[in-house]
């Protein structure tokens, strides 16, 4: 939910990183956290299991500067990817302004990618939201791994509505900020319509 506070001159938006388990959602946030100046970010919170798997969510507040005198603040969340955490995933989508789908480029994970997009659609549906009309960016992550699936094939399988699509390697940071920018831009453009 976009929250505009005229007293504090702030605008707050919520971005959720979605996708199958181990696709690199948490790693995206970690990279953004490491590369952002201290005065532009809050604490990164990870509610994880002992083995570092996301249990509930990761959270990173980012301050991107100001537009027309309003501080633009983005709250980045990741969801837990494992199938059995669906109830938690749904909770985190509540009030979402934009979604980044982090797809795993390894061929053996294509089914999991497809399944997770379906799951995203159905969870959005429960809030009366449609992926078609939501700010949405697709990321093909793990491009650094040799012999991953060709991007045009992935595009055919995973692209939903000609949404902006980026190759990335979250561990090196390649494509991570481009992805974030793309979804942030779509969210701000939505504001213009409101």
């Amino acid at each position, binding site marked *: 939910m976009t929250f505009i506070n005229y007293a504090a001159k702030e605008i707050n938006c919520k971005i959720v990183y979605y996708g199958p388990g181990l696709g690199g959602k948490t790693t995206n946030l970690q990279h953004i956290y490491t590369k952002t100046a201290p005065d532009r970010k809050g604490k990164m919170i990870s509610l994880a299991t002992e083995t570092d798997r996301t249990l509930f969510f990761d959270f990173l507040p980012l301050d991107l500067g100001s537009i027309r005198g309003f501080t633009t603040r983005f*709250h980045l969340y990741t969801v837990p990817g494992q199938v059995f955490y669906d109830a938690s995933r749904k909770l985190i989508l509540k009030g979402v302004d934009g979604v980044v789908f982090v797809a795993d480029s390894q061929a053996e994970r294509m089914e999991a990618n497809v399944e997770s997009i379906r799951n995203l659609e159905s969870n959005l549906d429960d809030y009366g939201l449609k992926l078609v009309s939501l700010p949405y960016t697709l990321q093909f992550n793990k491009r650094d791994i040799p012999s991953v699936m060709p991007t045009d094939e992935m595009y055919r399988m995973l692209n939903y509505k000609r949404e902006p699509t980026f190759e990335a390697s979250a561990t090196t940071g390649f494509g991570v900020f481009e992805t974030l920018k793309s979804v942030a831009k779509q969210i701000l453009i939505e504001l213009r319509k409101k």
Partner: protein
Amino acid sequence: MSSTFLEVYEEEFERLAEALRRLRYASNAEAIFLIDKNGQQIAAAGDVENFDSTSLASLTAGNVAATDGLAKLIGEREFSVLFHEGERDHIHISLVAERAILLVIFNERSSLGLVRLRVRRASEELEQIFREISERSAAEADEQSPASPFWEITDEDIDSLFNE
């Protein structure tokens, strides 16, 4: 716009903040935060600089969301109050007007009974303010308020965010 869009004007914010300040005073609490259910802080009062308010807001909303989920699982509509007891500091969490969360942090200078009583009163006041905000924004939605500073955002404005 729909319920997924909340705009709070300056005088409305001031009324919310004033209600929180009064609650803080009446309950002897350390700090009070008003948070929307999606984890964004709306207003606060008290010794807020002692706390990481952004993290508090996000975790509180997560906590409430998880508890809501639990309630539904056992056939309850919601659990309206949560209480976490620490050695020194305690947290009282309650829902306001369905869309907001009131977080009260207090210590031995107050008590659960007092906090509970004062929160109940303050909630009525906050609910009234939220009702007026909703009515105001519903009215504006009809007449296409020209006040929004975001109507005129240009592509350059947006690009500049990332280039600073």
